[in-house]
């Protein structure tokens, strides 16, 4: 379709601690990428084009119309790049679950017995590291210093280091969401109007409405069954009511219920609604409320303890993508036992 564009939008795509799934997601517009090129000039996109950091630094402040950042803030340089992007861009968009909530990389913020370096460089069975060498921020080789960026104590969301204008969640953001972003850009190009600052470009309500599976009269389950142990998964009935863990009730709509359509429970990669500040705590409240709610009056405290014991890895399951921005991750462990 013929688009009369006064001037193309300058777009920069920067990345932090990423798996580049978000880059692939943009490329997954497939043929539509050609329409995007009509209204957009990529001035920075390392994964797909030959731009170097200095190319970004060389741009004038505010010269970039829209700066997309995907990946979590994991090293000091991620933070540096985010700040440069902020300086150079009129609008900064947090793109994908990592930039929005810390994503899977922020799982590293959870407490574990062993330290990361020990697990990777010492305890791994396939690593022979007798001297126990570990990567250093600076190494002297024949008089020259080879540097590595320092690893931050936490992998955080983009808005923990810079001011963010818009949010596009998802891991990676699904095609319908990216199409919404393209529409927003097109309207911005043609009319210069933008959604309210801080808007999340996804559904405002939760997945259950979009999922289309029927909800039975009563939703009450005894325990969560892992998908490989359940005898049969009903393709039309709500997964949660079948005891299959699904974070749909607490997760934004907008993805087209891709996972639940395939008999797989949602893990919340679009994050919570505007009103919820801690995705995991809200989901836990809903799920435990329905645990044996039909027969709860026959239970004692000890019976409930046994049931709760069977909930698999609550921290890792209910905070799969949002631990970085969760309230609970802001608590710190007590020094003493």
């Amino acid at each position, binding site marked *: 379709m013929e688009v009369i564009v006064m001037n193309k939008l300058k777009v920069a795509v920067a990345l932090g601690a990423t798996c580049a799934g978000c880059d692939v997601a943009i490329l997954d517009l497939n043929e539509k990428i050609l329409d995007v090129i009509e209204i957009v000039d990529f001035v920075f996109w390392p994964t797909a084009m030959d731009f170097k950091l200095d190319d970004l630094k060389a741009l004038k402040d505010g010269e970039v119309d829209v700066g997309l950042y995907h990946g979590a803030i994991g090293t000091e340089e991620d933070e540096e790049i985010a700040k440069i992007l902020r300086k150079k861009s009129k609008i900064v968009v947090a793109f994908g679950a990592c930039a929005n909530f810390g994503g899977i990389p922020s799982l590293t913020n959870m407490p574990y017995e062993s330290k990361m370096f020990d697990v990777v460089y010492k305890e791994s069975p396939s690593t022979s590291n007798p001297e126990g060498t570990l990567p250093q921020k600076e190494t002297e080789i024949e008089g020259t210093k080879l540097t590595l960026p320092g690893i931050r104590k936490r992998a955080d969301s983009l808005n923990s280091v810079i001011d963010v204008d818009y949010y596009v969640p998802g891991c990676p953001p699904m095609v319908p969401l990216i199409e919404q972003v393209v529409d927003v850009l097109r309207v911005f190009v043609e009319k210069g109007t933008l959604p309210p600052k801080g808007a999340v470009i996804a559904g*405002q*309500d*939760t*997945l*259950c*409405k*979009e999922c289309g599976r029927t*909800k039975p009269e*009563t*939703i*009450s389950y005894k325990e969560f069954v892992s998908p490989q142990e359940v005898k049969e998964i009903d393709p039309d009935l*709500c997964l949660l009511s079948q005891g299959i863990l699904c974070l*749909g*009730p*607490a997760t934004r*709509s907008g993805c087209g219920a891709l996972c639940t359509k395939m008999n797989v429970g949602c893990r919340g990669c679009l994050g*919570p*609604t*505007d*009103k*919820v500040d801690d995705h995991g705590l*809200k*989901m836990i*409240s*809903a799920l435990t*409320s*329905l645990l044996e*709610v039909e027969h709860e*009056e026959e239970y004692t405290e000890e019976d409930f303890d046994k049931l709760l014991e069977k909930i698999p890895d609550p921290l890792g399951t209910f905070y799969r993508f949002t631990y970085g921005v969760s309230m609970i991750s802001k608590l710190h462990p007590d020094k003493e036992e």
Partner: protein
Amino acid sequence: MKKEMDEKKKVGVFVCHCGRNIAQTVDIEKLMEKVREKYDVELVEDNMYMCSDPGQNLLKESIQAKNLNRVIVAACSRDMHEPTFRSAAQEAGLNPYLVEIANIREQVSWVHDDKEKATEKASKIIGSTIEKVIRDEPLEPLKIPVVQRALVIGGGIAGIQAALDIADAGYEVTLVEKSPTIGGHMAQLAETFPTLDCSQCILTPKMVAVSRHPKINLLTTSEVVSVDGYVGNFKVQIRKNPRYVDVDKCNLCDDCTAVCPVVVHDEYNQSLSPRKAIYIPFPQAVPASYVIDEETCLGIDPLICSKCKDVCLVEAINFDMQPEIIEEEFGAIIVATGYDTYPIENIGEYGYGAHPDIISGLDFERLLSANGPTQGVIRRPSDGKVPKTVVFVHCAGSRDPAKHLPYCSKICCMYSTKHALQYKHLVHDGTAINFYIDVRTAGKDYEEFYKRAAEEEKVIYVRGKVSEIIEDGDQLLVKAVDTLLGEAVEVHADLVVLATGLVPSKGTQEISHLLKLSCDSKGFLKEAHPKLKPVESALSGIFIAGTASGPKDIPETVSQASGAAAKAATILASEFLEREPQIAQVDPTTCGLCHTCINVCPYGAIYLDEGVGRITVREALCEGCGSCAAACPSGSIELKNSTSEGIRARIKALLQG
């Protein structure tokens, strides 16, 4: 999008000394200073006794003088004087829900002695209450329209009494009874303990009163098929099954039974005597009319016999009657679905009820009744002889957790004693032997009744459980152990009466599913509170009376019936039900219809309104517990004047400084 807080919040804080109760460990002056300095309030005043008239006047005058739009009274527990201060504020023109109480007496002055810390804590509690009051919105009590008509389910003595009381209170009542007549099990009794009143004599006047009461709409051969709605607005569907006899025309001439070729067991007489397919349950039946038993009649559709119709002079018989669904609305419901007796067929030790001369208590009642199968003469069902020795077995299948009912049914000791006494009246030279574990005589004049049977009528009481009853010639060998003498006992009896306990009737089980009433572990309906709310169910607007909630005697049943009627009448008394307005509300923009709230609500107050496709809260049922707001995974449900953000602010205020 937050509603902008347009009107400026002008908060008045009134600190009460409560004489010395608060002032002794809270420095009132310092407290007032702290509140003025730390919080954005319009004025801070104090008074020796805020609840006194001067105190309340101070409140009223300050509201008007400074046109305060929020008030906090820092005094005692809200249970004490919240209504006092709210109505005082209302008199001054302020919405009562904009007044909050900060408890600095039970929670502070009475429990702490360090004056400085107590004052600091009082200030924090006031600060926290300020966070609540500035977020309160003016509210009005909810008004739920009430349909001023009651439904009584079950036509036994409980249902009859309840219906009469409500009708006498001036409200319309629909009484629904599944069988062709009201009267229930009481109509089958000969006489009642301890007064030995003739059961029919005291019951039938009430039955007639029901039939003649203008406010009572009696529906027999009918059953409730569905109940929707909530207190004040129950939508009920009742199926009225056909009697095939027009009640108004039938003049009880009894010509039809003579020609009816079908002979079957008569349930009213415990199948001890026959009846025809067309019959009247018992002479005093209400409604006074014959009825055709569809199952045993040779055939109505297609019509096979119709002999009865041919002889009926007044043409009262009409085979074209069809079942009919009646839809009505009610403000309150009383469940009085009665009991059944524990079937003697279940008790293997006593012959599974196979032997004709081993009968149940109700069977014996029929033998005693003048309108019974033996016209009141006690004859053995096997050969019609008058039995010389009769054994009455107490606790037959009761207090026996291993095999039968674990509980005691309260009335069997008394009706067995009554049976023994009546038998001795009728067969003076007969021997009545009662085997018992404990004779329970816990009602008025019950002990005297038992003494009379044992001492005057010489009924022999043997303490011991009957272990076995076996046929021995034309008599029955009853084996037991006399635990007082510690010896085995064997008695040759001509007749054995098993005093079985009470179990929930089939009707009780059906209605519990229909109304979603919870049952106790024995299947009887569960009261809202066993001690303090015996006639209320867990669902507001639904009441329970009589043996539907557990074994009890007639006096207790009747008093429960009147209690339930009074409770129902209080609902019907006003056009509107007023309810606390702090209920849940749903924001549809973020609600994902995940049904969590529907399943969490203990009152079924939340439902999916298919029409608009939105989760909706029934104002009449929501009690404001807030469980849905805490569970809602999308944060779409909030309680009026108790939002999550508000509670967060209250916590933060407690921790500041």
